[in-house]
C-alpha cells in the first residue's frame, strides 16, 4: 500500500470513530468489521477456546463503543482496541483450573486436524507448531499475551508497548525474559523442540 493510501485509510478510520462517538452505530459496525478478525484471533490465542474468544471479542467491541468518549481522535485505534481485547481475554483466564481445562481443549482441538493424512514434512512441521503452542501454554497468562501480540499477531514492539501501555524498553526486557523462560520450558519438557533453543 502506498503512503498516500495508508494515510487515506487512517483518515477514513478516524472519520468512522468520530461518527461512532456521535452515536452512529453503522459507522461503528464498519470499524468492527475492519478489526473483528484480529480481535477474535487475539482473544482465541489467549483464551484457547472458540466460544470464550467470540464472547471476549464481542464484549470488547461493546465496551470499546461505550468508552469511545475517552478515545482521543488522532490516536491509533488498533492498540487501544487490542488492549481491551487482551484485558478481557486475560480476565477469562483468571482461574487456573479453568485455564487448565482450556489448554486441554485447545490441544484436543488441534489434534482433530491431524486426521487428514498429509505429506511427511508438512505433518512434522504441524507437529512442531502444536508442540510449540503447548510449550507457550505453560507460560503465565500475561506472558502468553505478550508472545501472542509480539509473535503470533506479529505486532511491532512499539505497538505491543501501546497495547500493554508499558514503555518500549519494558516490552523488550519482558520479551527477552519470556523467551528465556520459554527456552527453559522447552529444554525441560519438550526435548523434541530443543533444536529451536540452540542459539541460546
Amino acid at each position, binding site marked *: 500500500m502506498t503512503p498516500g493510501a495508508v494515510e487515506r485509510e487512517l483518515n477514513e478510520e478516524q472519520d468512522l470513530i468520530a461518527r461512532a462517538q456521535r452515536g452512529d452505530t453503522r459507522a461503528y459496525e464498519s470499524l468492527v468489521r475492519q478489526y473483528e478478525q484480529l480481535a477474535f484471533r487475539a482473544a*482465541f490465542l489467549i483464551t484457547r477456546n472458540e466460544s470464550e474468544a467470540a464472547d471476549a471479542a464481542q464484549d470488547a467491541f461493546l465496551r470499546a463503543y461505550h468508552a469511545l468518549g475517552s478515545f482521543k481522535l488522532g490516536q491509533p485505534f488498533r492498540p487501544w482496541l487490542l488492549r481491551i481485547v487482551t484485558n478481557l481475554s486475560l480476565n477469562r483466564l483468571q482461574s487456573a483450573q479453568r485455564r487448565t481445562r482450556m489448554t486441554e481443549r485447545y490441544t484436543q482441538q488441534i489434534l482433530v486436524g491431524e486426521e487428514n493424512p498429509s505429506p511427511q514434512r508438512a505433518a512434522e512441521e504441524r507437529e512442531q507448531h502444536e508442540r510449540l503452542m503447548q510449550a507457550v501454554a505453560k507460560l503465565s497468562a500475561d506472558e502468553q499475551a505478550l508472545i501472542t501480540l509480539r509473535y503470533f499477531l506479529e505486532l511491532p514492539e512499539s505497538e505491543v508497548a501501546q497495547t500493554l501501555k508499558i514503555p518500549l524498553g519494558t516490552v523488550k526486557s519482558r520479551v527477552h525474559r519470556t523467551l528465556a523462560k520459554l527456552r527453559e520450558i522447552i529444554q*525441560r519438557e519438550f526435548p523434541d523442540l530443543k533444536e529451536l533453543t540452540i542459539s541460546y
Partner: protein
Amino acid sequence: MSANNGFDKLENALIVAGRNVPYPATPPLAARVRAQLESERAQRPFWSINWNGPRWAFTFIAAVLIALVLLLAFPDTREAIAQLIGLRTVRIIQVTPTPTVPGATPVPSATPGVAPVTQCCQTTLEAATARARFKILLPPGDTPSQVFLQPVFGSGNDAAQFIAVFGDPNAPRYVLYQAQHIVYEKMLSGFEKQLGPATVVDMTLVNGHEARWLSGAPHLLVRLDANGSPLVDTERAVSANTLVWEMGEMTYRLETTLSEAEAIHLAESLVAVSPPTNLAQCCETTLEDARARAHFQILVPRGETPSKVYLQEKFLNDIAQQVILVFGDAEKPRLIIYESQNFVYGKVLSASSKDAGPRTLIDFTYVNGNEARWLSGEPHLLVYLDARGERVVGSERTVSMNTLVWETGDATFGTTYRLETNLSETEAVRLAESMQ
C-alpha cells in the same frame, strides 16, 4: 514458510506457528455488536445516557436522571440503572432522597475536598508490602504520608484493603484505595437536596480497564458483604472526585481534587512496589541449631563439615527459609550450598542469543533422580523472585562459580538446593548425591 530474518530460531518458529494456528472461523461480530447496540438503544428510556456525548450532556442528563429517580423507586428500574453504569465490584445506584443502610447510624456528612483517613490499621509501607497478598501499586516519584492495611471482615475470605494518603494527612492531595475481594456500592443522589448539583458519572478506561469517574455532588460509599448486602457502619460520604477501576480481582479507588484527565494519567502511571527483604547473609548459627529450626531436611555432603552455617528465616515471605553452608576458608570458600524452601530464584544468563561472545552454558542432568541444571561458563546473575514471580529489586547477585541446582518435592513443599563450586560437573553431581 519463512519469517523475518531479524529474529532468532525460536522467535521465527513462534511466528511461523502463529501463522499456522488453525483458527476457527471468525464469528460475525460486526452484525452481533450492531444488533446489541441497537437493542440497548431500544431498551433505554428517552432520558438515558449517551456515554459518548459531550460532557455537558452528562451533567444535564445525570441531573434529569436523578430527578426522575425520585419517581422511579421501583426495584426493576433501579436494577437497570445500576447495571448500566456499575462495575463488577462497584455497584453504582441512584437512590431515593435519603439513602439509608439497614441498621446504620445517621448518614455521615461530607467534608469538602479529599477527606482525611481516620480508619484503622495504620502501618508502614514496608510492612504493608510485605504483608499484603496483592501487588501494591504506587505512583512513581510520590511517597505516601500515611499507609493503612486493613483486613476486612464480612466481605468474604481474604478481603483486604490498602490505603495510601498523599500530602498533608489532614488535607490530602489524594488518597488511593486498593482492595481485594471487596464489593462496594456507591449511592449517588442522596445528597442532592442538601448540596445542589448531582453526582456526574463518566465511563472511561484506565489502561484499557473499565473505569468510572464520579464528580459533582458527594456520593455515599458503602461496603457490601459476600451476599451483596450493605455492611452496617461502613458507609462514608465521599465529596472528592473519585476515579474507580478494576483490574482482575482488585478494585482501585482514587479520591482526588485532580481533574479527570490528570486522575487517569496518575492511575495509569502506577507501578508495583516490591516487598522489602533482608538480603544480607545474616543469621549465623550452628548446624545443629539450623537442623532443629529448619522446616526441611538440611543435607550435608558425606564427610564434609561446614565452616559456617547461616539460617535465614522469613526470607522474602513469612514462611520462607534459607540455609547457607560454607565449606573451606570463609573468605574464599571452595563450596557453598544454599538450601531453601518457599521462595523462588530467577537466573539471568550472561549472554543473549544475539551476543557472539562466551556465555553461560546450561547442562541438563540429574541428582538422585531429581532434575538438575549445571550452569558453567560465564558468570550468571541470580535474583530472588517474590511470591508473584517478580524480581525483588536489589536481590541481584553475580554468581561466578559453576552452579548445580536441583529440587526435591513439589512446587508447594519442595526444597531447592544450590551448590556453588569450582568442581567439575561430574564431581559436583557425585558430591550432591552424597548429601545426607
